[in-house]
């Protein structure tokens, strides 16, 4: 049975440890896309002994996995890539944390109960009502950059804006974006990274801290309903546990943080990095800002912030001609699908006018399709509009090379040093 605490030691059947599988370094991001291209050409489905996952890299195979909810369970989605020690799990349970499945890691019955409720709030029409507030937040951050000659765009803009937008959705004013960042960082590190020892213990404390914050928030909205996500879920619940339990509501509120924060931060950082790295594309956007929505899609395709997602087989399957046993872990390369040369010509070129860009799967596909996709698109579009207007001559800082978020699943620059007003040649 799948647990939410371990994926590491499951039997995987006879696993051929190919040379390519041996060479796979899931936590390293330098050479990331070169490796995917090599895998797609030589061994598009391979087994990684390092994480004990089957890795699927071609778009056609990725779509087949995402479409087949019966053969591929989502229950593994939030399980730690490396297993938690038993005493760590016990400490989280003792602290009141729920390992009950929520939206992203539930299968048919639970998912079909939760998703329609969440969707009543998390939808394009609702998001559109936040557009002007989001623009005001972005403009505040741009104003704070002022006349700085050099700035880290992640610290100055892309980290805090999505956190503040989440605060809008959750209707909270008593929490700093930096606190959300701390919680989210630890949550991601413990689930998708490789934390150990005191780092893991600290992540556990932060996880409980955020869980308890969400519990308090939900308890408050039971007494003082507002126009926000938790209040709407409680209203739909109508006091009926068969509709939603309080733990369901806390879990849905809790889940929004990671789902809507780091993903958008990384996607926006990747987009700006790619545009500044291919100057002619930046200039095309400047000349024709109507291309911004398409450029956002190209950013999501070219440099997805969610590069891998996970499923577990519920039966023996064959993917891309490779037999995979029941109970096996599958790592779906969304980055691979989005750079499949069969679908995207010259895929590593960033093309703001790419015609078939919406064929990307950066937000997944099928019934788990990202509920926050319209919000991410809205935030990224507004950020690009405002950046291009305020800093049309922005350049990457000379010699800057990004370090990447150290997880298997997410990819984005930890810092992004730019010259807002250009001038690298004069420097």
């Amino acid at each position, binding site marked *: 049975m799948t647990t939410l605490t371990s994926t590491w030691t499951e039997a995987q059947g006879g696993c051929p440890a190919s040379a390519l599988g041996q060479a796979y370094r899931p936590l390293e991001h330098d050479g990331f896309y070169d490796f995917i291209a090599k895998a797609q050409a030589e061994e598009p489905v391979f087994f990684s002994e390092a994480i004990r996952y089957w890795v699927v890299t071609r778009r056609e195979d990725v779509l087949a996995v995402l479409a087949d909810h019966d053969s591929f369970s989502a229950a593994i989605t939030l399980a730690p890539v490396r297993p938690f020690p038993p005493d760590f799990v016990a400490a989280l349970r003792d602290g009141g944390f729920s390992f009950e499945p929520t939206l992203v890691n539930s299968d048919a019955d639970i998912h079909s109960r939760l998703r*329609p409720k969440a969707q009543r709030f998390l939808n*394009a029409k609702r998001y559109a009502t936040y557009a002007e507030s989001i623009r005001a937040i972005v403009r505040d951050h741009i104003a704070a950059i002022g006349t700085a000659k050099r700035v880290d765009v992640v610290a100055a803009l892309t980290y805090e804006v999505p956190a503040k937008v989440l605060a809008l959705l959750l209707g909270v004013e008593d929490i700093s974006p930096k606190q959300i960042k701390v919680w989210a960082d630890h949550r991601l590190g413990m689930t998708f990274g490789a934390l150990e020892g005191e780092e893991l213990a600290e992540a556990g404390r932060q996880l409980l801290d955020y869980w308890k914050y969400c519990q308090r928030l939900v308890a408050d909205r039971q007494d003082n309903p507002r126009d926000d996500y938790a209040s709407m879920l409680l209203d739909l619940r109508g006091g009926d546990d068969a509709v939603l339990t309080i733990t369901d509501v806390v879990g849905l509120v809790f889940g929004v943080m990671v789902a809507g924060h780091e993903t958008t931060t990384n996607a926006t950082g990747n987009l700006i990095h790619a545009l500044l790295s291919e100057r002619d594309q930046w200039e095309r956007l400047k000349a024709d800002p109507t291309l911004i929505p398409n450029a956002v899609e190209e950013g999501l395709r070219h440099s997805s912030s969610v590069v891998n997602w996970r499923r577990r087989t519920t039966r023996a399957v064959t993917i891309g001609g490779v037999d995979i046993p029941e109970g096996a872990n599958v790592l779906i390369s969304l980055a691979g699908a989005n750079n499949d040369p069969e679908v995207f010509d010259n895929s590593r070129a960033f093309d703001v006018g790419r015609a078939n860009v919406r064929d990307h799967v950066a937000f997944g596909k*099928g019934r788990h*399709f990202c509920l926050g996709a319209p919000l991410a698109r809205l935030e990224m579009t507004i950020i690009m509009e405002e950046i291009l207007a305020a800093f049309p001559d922005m350049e990457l800082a000379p010699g800057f090379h990004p370090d990447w978020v150290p997880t298997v699943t997410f990819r984005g620059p930890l810092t992004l040093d730019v010259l807002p007003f250009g001038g690298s040649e004069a420097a």
Partner: protein
Amino acid sequence: MKIAFLTADGNRIEAQAQPGASVMEIATGAGVPGIIGECSGSMACGTCHCKLTDDRYALVGPPGDDEAAMLEFSDTEPTATSRLSCQIALTPAHDGLIVHVPPWA
């Protein structure tokens, strides 16, 4: 059988269709702009919103509850004859269906 899509910029795109396929599948197969179908027919994205003429809507029928909710939340305002095209399973009776693609005036 054939169905036709009328796009926002006034183009008419005709496509061969097979009974059993959804209108969304025919549209994405034919590259109709404005019908995206990101969730592959799971009623989870609202990116295959379309509208039908009154007589065709009567033939196809109204949306179910979950579909109606998703239509309400899509970024194009739904009309009285809106459907998610992924939820329209084609039958031979739908031959000649005309599907309007958003945005519409």
